[in-house]
């Protein structure tokens, strides 16, 4: 703890000491370290706040506490293994990470037009389910940070329904590595469509309950209306995209502006609000979930039987998975095939799985509209079996720069609301 005439730096130490010192000196400003271990900072985000009484006069953001070197690690694995890494970046939007990465690899391979329709439809369906799951967590954690535990329990309960679908389809609740260059890891298992239909029937009611709980709730309104305001020029200058941008009045959505995975064939609206505050962001998110339901419904109608992996023996992943008694795992049929009936299949499997495929030299950038904003993937290949460089433009990373613009001059309580409304996930920010 440092005490000067001007400020008290309360980084570490006992609060009683801080109060005692504050009473003894004439210093009026208090520098508080919030995080990196703090329940309301969505992981290991560190905020350095200068407080003048209740007012936050300066907000600085420090990141890097969850840097895991994913981009560097990917340079030492095959292109397919990359999906296993990227899915762990923003762990609340794994399927967006995977899709952005796979679209970049497919662009470098020049096979975008040969991705089977069924694979694209499954990708869209999974991404939209993921969008809802991510938005539910955004609302749930927001509620919890403001002290509304019902919002939290409801949000996580609804998300669980989506995670059940993920578990059935991919075998895992998170970290799926389901979307692969060339398609998806395996087809929908029996019962998956029924489970999604069940979700589609149940979910509108659940969203309605959420809306009833929050839309007109006076306490919620008091904490969110006109809080953490960011207008459109501010968004543009700071590179803010996604729900935050749409809550500032610009209906910009990559799914409409630069469609990928066949989004041009779906009918949906882009929710927009011109409030520019925390409440507007909530309204945009909850309206987006309703639009996602529409898209998922159209996905189910579009699902025609067919392959889910590119029909190119040089690229398509040869291994198969199957649903066993303990969940998704190795397919006994595939193993029997390569181990005891076909030497060529074994060689083929071995070559693609250990060596991987070569990607022609070049660079590509692809972007998807993740639940948080524009998630971009810039991939460089030198013609080898491993990425030469992969970089992710994570929306949360960019958005956290806006914390100062949103918080300075507001009260310290609104800092929590501001950070929560950005919905950052440090796994994606730090990569």
């Amino acid at each position: 703890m440092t005490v000067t005439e001007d400020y008290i730096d309360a980084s570490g130490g006992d609060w009683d000491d801080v109060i005692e010192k504050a009473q003894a000196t004439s210093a009026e400003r208090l520098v508080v370290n919030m995080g990196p271990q703090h329940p309301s900072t969505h992981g290991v985000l560190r905020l350095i706040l200068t407080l003048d009484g209740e007012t936050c006069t300066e907000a600085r953001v420090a990141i890097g506490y969850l840097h895991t070197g994913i981009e560097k690690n990917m340079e030492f694995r095959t292109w397919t293994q990359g999906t296993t890494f990227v899915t762990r970046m923003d762990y609340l939007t794994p399927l967006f990470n995977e899709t952005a990465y796979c679209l970049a690899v497919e662009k470098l391979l020049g096979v975008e037009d040969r991705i089977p329709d069924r694979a694209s439809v499954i990708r869209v369906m999974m991404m939209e389910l993921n969008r809802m799951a991510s938005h539910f967590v955004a609302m749930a954690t927001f509620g919890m940070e403001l002290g509304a535990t019902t919002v939290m329990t409801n949000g996580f309960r609804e998300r669980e329904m989506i995670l059940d679908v993920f578990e059935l389809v991919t075998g895992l609740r998170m970290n799926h590595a389901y979307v692969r260059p060339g398609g998806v890891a395996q087809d929908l298992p029996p019962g998956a469509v029924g489970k999604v239909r069940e979700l589609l029937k149940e979910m509108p009611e659940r969203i309605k309950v959420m809306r009833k709980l929050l839309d007109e709730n006076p306490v919620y309104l008091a904490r969110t209306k006109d809080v953490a305001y960011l207008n459109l020029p501010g968004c543009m200058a700071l590179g803010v995209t996604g729900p935050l941008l749409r809550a500032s009045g610009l209906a910009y959505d990559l799914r409409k502006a630069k469609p990928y995975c066949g989004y041009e064939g779906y009918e949906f609206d882009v929710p927009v609000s011109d409030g520019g505050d925390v409440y507007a962001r909530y309204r945009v998110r909850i309206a987006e979930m309703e639009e996602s339901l529409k898209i998922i419904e159209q996905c189910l109608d579009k699902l025609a039987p067919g392959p889910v992996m590119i029909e190119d023996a040089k690229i398509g992943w040869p291994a198969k998975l199957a649903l066993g008694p303990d969940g998704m795992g190795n397919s006994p049929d595939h193993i029997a095939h390569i181990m005891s009936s076909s030497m060529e299949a074994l060689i083929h499997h071995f070559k693609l799985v250990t060596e991987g495929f070569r990607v022609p030299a070049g660079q590509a950038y692809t972007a998807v509209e993740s639940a948080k904003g524009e998630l971009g993937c810039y991939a460089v290949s030198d013609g080898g079996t491993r990425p030469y460089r992969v970089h992710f433009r994570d929306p949360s990373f960019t958005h956290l720069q806006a914390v100062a613009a949103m918080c300075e001059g507001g009260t310290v309580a609104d800092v929590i609301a501001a950070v929560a409304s950005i919905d950052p996930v440090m796994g994606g920010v730090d990569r």
Partner: protein
Amino acid sequence: MSTDNERERDEEAARLPDRMGEERLAAPIKRTGMFGTGTSGDTSGFGLLQVRGSAPVSSQRPFTDPDDPRTADFDRVADDLEAALGDSAGAVERVEVSHGEITFHVLREALPELARVLRDDPALRYELCLGVTGVHFPDREGRELHAVYQFRSITHNSEIRVTTTCPDTDRHIPSIVAVYPTNDWHEREAWDFFGIVFDGHPALTRIQMPDDWHGHPQRKDYPLGGIPVEYRGATVPPPDQRRSYT
């Protein structure tokens, strides 16, 4: 008229097969042998095979390919950019069109002016900068470090990439934070990971690595690290020491 003819003849000569062969042989060797691995013997008879990397692509006009809708506005963008840059249009060294994307390779001195033009010129209006990232090419002498910027125009629904380079011995690139404030953290990240100094950045400090870290981890001369893992008597080497295929 005669200069036109001469230029045409030069361009014609540049496309001759023997010239292309020379270029091909000047490119660095990326892979030898049939299987791209050196840890086991090659009995295929292709052990002397050499695969060379590709020379930098320099696309010629027209940039718009009528068969590829993704390239529809590339000629317009290139024209508008040239017009907006005026006298400094020479700063664009080459233009690369591939995978339905357009990349302008520019001299680093011209970057702030280019950024300002991209944002402010009504014909361009690239409101969003999607950040900058580095790429390290240790074998490209004099331009080892690349800084890659992605710009997006919402007004014209257009997307371009701008690349600039700096030698490893003089790692300086002008900052464009004054024009695109969003690049603040992105430039700090590129400094942290590649050691590119963005001149004019308000506070160029490390962002992902600790403040007292040595080295810039995303550079190719920085090792991945890792330790061998023993499991049931067998040892698995760290990822950068395992058998690899180029």
